[in-house]
């Protein structure tokens, strides 16, 4: 399993999750967990996904999701899980 954390930050609008999920499904990326919250008035969503079966490289996926985000007015970031694990787990 190769876990990646996808975060979506921006103004809430219809169809954010749908569009991101469609992209992930098309690229054989499995969603393991979704959570969302409102931080300082902004929509914050985090997805933990498994990219083991993905047809795309991390760089391509990050670029394409970033573009997708620009289309709906939100910022989408993809980061490998290790950075969060290293920082928050001893």
């Amino acid at each position, binding site marked *: 399993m190769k876990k990646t*954390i996808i*975060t979506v930050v921006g103004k809430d609008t219809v169809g954010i999750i749908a569009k991101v999920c469609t992209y992930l499904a098309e690229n054989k990326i499995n969603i393991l*967990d979704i*959570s*969302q*919250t409102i*931080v300082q008035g902004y929509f*914050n969503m*985090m997805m*933990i996904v498994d990219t083991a079966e993905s047809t795309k490289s*991390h*760089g391509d996926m*990050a670029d394409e999701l970033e573009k997708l985000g620009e289309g709906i007015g939100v910022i989408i*970031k*993809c*980061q*490998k*899980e*290790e*950075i*969060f*694990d*290293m*920082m*928050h787990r001893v």
Partner: protein
Amino acid sequence: MINISEVVETNNMIEKENLDVRTITLGISLLDCIDSDLNALNDKIYKKIYEAAKDLVKTGEEISGEFGIPIVNKRISVTPIALIGAAACKTIEDFASIAKTLDKVAHEVGVNFIGGYSALVSKGMTPADELLIRSIPLALSTTERVCSSVNLGSTKTGINMDAVRLMGQMIKQTAEYTKEDDSLGCAKLVVFCNAPDDNPFMAGAFHGVTEADKIINVGVSGPGVVKTALEKVRGESFEVLCETIKKTAFKVTRVGQLVAKEASRMLNVPFGIVDLSLAPTPAIGDSVADILCEIGLEYAGAPGTTAALALLNDQVKKGGVMASSYVGGLSGAFIPVSEDQGMIDAVVAGALTIEKLEAMTCVCSVGLDMIAIPGDTSESTISGIIADEMAIGMVNQKTTAVRVIPVIGKGVGEKVEFGGLLGYAPVMPVNPFSCEAFVSRTGRIPAPIHSFKN
């Protein structure tokens, strides 16, 4: 599993508080390039560095993309050139030709600095060491990315005062040779006492002779992250203050450890060390002086500054040590003047003097760093400043350094622009009284009594 608040915390550190990996530095041994023919030597040096470092920048960018963390600099350090060039170089121009080779390969592989135009002369100078030192002004004025350092003393050997005197002259000459650019050459030249072999930071990085053929060293940063964390504990006790710094330093260093391991894997080069450092940049909020203010000082330099810095430095190390499997010899807080907006403000406000900075260097890593002084400061005064700083390092068994810039044609209060990460600095006043007779004495200062530990 990781939760959303942890993800938001990490991303806030990166996006709002300037958390970054300051540098991935690839150390490369040039010992196997040694040749008595200068052309062959230059050729071998170029090839070895190019082969080792051709993927460094690309790899750095890839790691940066994977984890969403900026990696600001990718750099190279090499074996001190005084050793490498000793057999081939008979003139200062010969040595400077090696600097040109280093500069060329640095441009070719896309790194912004290459360190190791260095000599280690803490006890004595070989003819090659002296020749390299005398070639520094020429080398730094005819190259762009080469950095030079000279180790002038250590706790075990004492201080080589002949070399201290010579470096006073060379710093002044480097300033003259680069006066069109506000004496920028001196920003790429640093002298040390107790120089560590695995320093990833410029201008002092070199690949020590005790190191492996190639090694990855990483320097982390994050003064803004510490400052933001401390904003939440205003007015709390020292215990709370120290715990907060420690926890934050741990988190920051973990990122460095991750990046170092990943770079080591991708480049197939062993992981050396993570240097746990708070290294400021001129960006607003990326300042060590601001942390000191947050601890409770009106400006850096106010009474209490040395104590606050001692506390900060110690807690950064305590937090970072557990976060990394190997920790570098230079770890702590850096206090360069020109690279730190809070320090610049303190100088302009009249709160911070060279003497106070000298006191601060007793309790933090490195030393008098990126300080612009009047262009008419004499060579012997510069040597005196160096000798003082070397003595602090020698007696306290720590690394100290001096990187001062005598800005030719400028006086106290005038502003000097170095550009980019080097920032800008107001020219600071220097004590006007002479130490000429002191630095004119020849020989060396013996090692202190506590160095005899056998």
